[in-house]
């Protein structure tokens, strides 16, 4: 049995990292996620499990520490918020190209630029559509509770090592800062050198005499090989898309109209569903848990079952709506609603937007 605690989202993420046997955390402070590195520093996980915690000189340095330590077969993570995640994009592109497993969290704040320290979901594009250079993807998990902040760390590592790629935990200032009950898993042991060598033959651990030395690189100047490398990456991403789509549906069985929302917006939209149902409206909620791969087929199945319209509810000026529109492909109406600048929409105004923009009078 796990342990029940009252914690902030950011703290739950940090505690889960220690408990799932992570080997290292490299990070740089930024609001609203500084609690992650503060909590880790305070907990002294080096004493608890041997986990390394290092405050790097920048997000650039932190992600490059993650890149190389991940290349050396270790379970390594970092976290940041929006402007810091911009700086991580260089390392993330290398991580994708060199196929290195790692987990990173983006506790999103408003932008562009320094923006605001208030919650936002305007890093959807940054994290689901790339950000760094080249044709690559990161798996993006969107927690909607403190519990999921904790749960998605071990899940993230499992996926990262299964596919040798980066997994993003895309949260926001609200989920990161709020306190909720969370059930924490029991402490897992960190992998030993022998286990790492046996499980991850690709990892840089010092080459055994008489065997081929290992190289982790994203570079290949041979065009034919580089094309094949890119094709192989795409085949891997297809595999992820086939196997790893996650979502939750609430009150969608008989729904005519559906809110699509993730993270904190999903919690608000869930309340809007209750308000709408009380008025006799057949509304439901689709909550994507993976933002990449996106639950495109779930939207299409809802249209097949008769859903006439979708409202994409986001704390942004409209980013995820593009994926909803792609899924609808003209077969159902879809629009965006969302407050920005640190203002969080109310369940009432979300329901109002559904009525005005999608249902019509």
């Amino acid at each position, binding site marked *: 049995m796990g342990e029940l605690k009252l914690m902030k989202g950011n703290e739950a993420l940090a505690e889960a990292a220690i408990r799932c046997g992570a*080997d*290292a955390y*490299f990070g740089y402070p930024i609001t609203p996620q500084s609690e992650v590195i503060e909590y880790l520093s305070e907990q002294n996980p080096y004493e608890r499990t041997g986990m*390394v915690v*290092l405050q*790097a*000189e*920048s997000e*650039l*340095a*932190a992600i*490059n*520490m*993650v*890149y*190389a*330590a991940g*290349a*050396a077969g*270790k379970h*390594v993570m970092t976290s940041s918020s929006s402007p810091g995640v911009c700086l991580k994009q*260089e*390392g993330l592109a*290398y991580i994708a190209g*060199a196929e290195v497993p790692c987990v990173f969290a983006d506790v999103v704040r408003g932008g562009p630029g320094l923006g605001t320290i208030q919650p936002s979901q305007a890093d959807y594009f940054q994290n689901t559509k790339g950000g760094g250079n080249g044709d690559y993807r990161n798996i993006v998990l969107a927690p909607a509770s403190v519990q999921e902040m904790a749960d998605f760390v071990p899940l993230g590592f499992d996926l990262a090592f299964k596919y040798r790629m980066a997994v993003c935990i895309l949260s926001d200032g609200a989920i990161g800062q709020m306190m909720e009950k969370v059930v924490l898993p029991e402490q897992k042991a960190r992998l030993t050198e022998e286990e790492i060598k046996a499980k991850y033959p690709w990892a*840089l*651990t*010092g*080459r*055994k*005499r008489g065997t081929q*030395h*290992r*190289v*982790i*690189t*994203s*570079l290949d100047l041979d065009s034919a090989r580089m094309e094949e490398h890119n094709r192989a990456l795409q085949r891997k991403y297809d595999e992820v898309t086939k196997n790893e789509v996650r979502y939750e549906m609430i009150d969608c069985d008989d729904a005519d109209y559906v809110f699509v929302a993730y993270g904190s917006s999903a919690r608000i939209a869930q309340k809007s569903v209750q308000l709408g149902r009380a008025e006799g409206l057949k509304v439901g909620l689709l909550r994507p848990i993976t933002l990449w791969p996106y639950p495109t087929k779930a939207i299409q199945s809802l249209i097949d079952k008769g859903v006439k319209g979708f409202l994409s509810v986001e704390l942004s000026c409209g980013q995820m709506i593009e994926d909803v529109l792609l899924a609808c492909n003209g077969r159902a109406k879809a629009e965006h609603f969302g407050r920005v600048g640190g203002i969080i929409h109310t369940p009432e105004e979300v329901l109002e937007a559904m009525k005005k923009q999608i249902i019509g009078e």
Partner: protein
Amino acid sequence: MAEITLQDIIQPENLVYEKSKLLTEKPFHYCPGCGHGTVHRIIAEVLEELGVDDRTIGVSPVGCAVMAYDYFDVDFVEAAHGRAPACATGIKRVWPDKVVFSYQGDGDLAAIGTCETIHTCNRGENITMIFVNNGIYGMTGGQMAPTTLVGMKTATTPYGRMPQWPDGTPNNGFPLQITQLLAQLPGTRYVTRQAVFSPAAVRNAKKAIKKAFQNQIENKNGVNFVEIVSNCNSNWKMSAVDANKWLQDNMLPVYPLGDLKDNFELIKK
């Protein structure tokens, strides 16, 4: 008397030189006469002599040495431009018993990666950093580097590097004395400047590199930093021989050879 055959000569007791076993069969892509190849050879020899090839992890830079990983028969990760010290930090922190080294050029270490360089040295990571200073961006075709000498012509200083305009307003800035700067930091254990333009210089450089690795193996902290003042005959647009002469006449007065720091103590000149 029987005639002496070639087979009689090729005998172990007659062996005076051989390629390090830690260099692969892959032909170097370096220009003939370039210092990178010599520095590779010394590092490989040192790792072989120390017998640590089965626990060494190298970090290659972005620059002419980007594919150093193809030439060394040890595990390697290729870093983003300037981030090799951060990569080396990441590896060493999670594998403190491995032998970790970074290999960088002057653009990589002293321009785009200055922040990572300084902070890695300041934290006193227990690693070995090799810095090949050829005063130019070799890989991208000879643009100005932070270490380019005053007056030196490069693709981006075609009239010579001019730190300031005649009226005193800033222009290209001054040659960056990065190694001196790093020697000032409490985290550096051993800081030395060497070269590979002559057999004597190569012998000294090898001694220094060996010490830089030995220190790492024997201790728990302190960056061991070896600068090699090197050439880029291709982009300096000189023959290999002329480049080595030019290096001695022009580079060494600005970047004099010798130890700057040993066992955390600055060496007074």
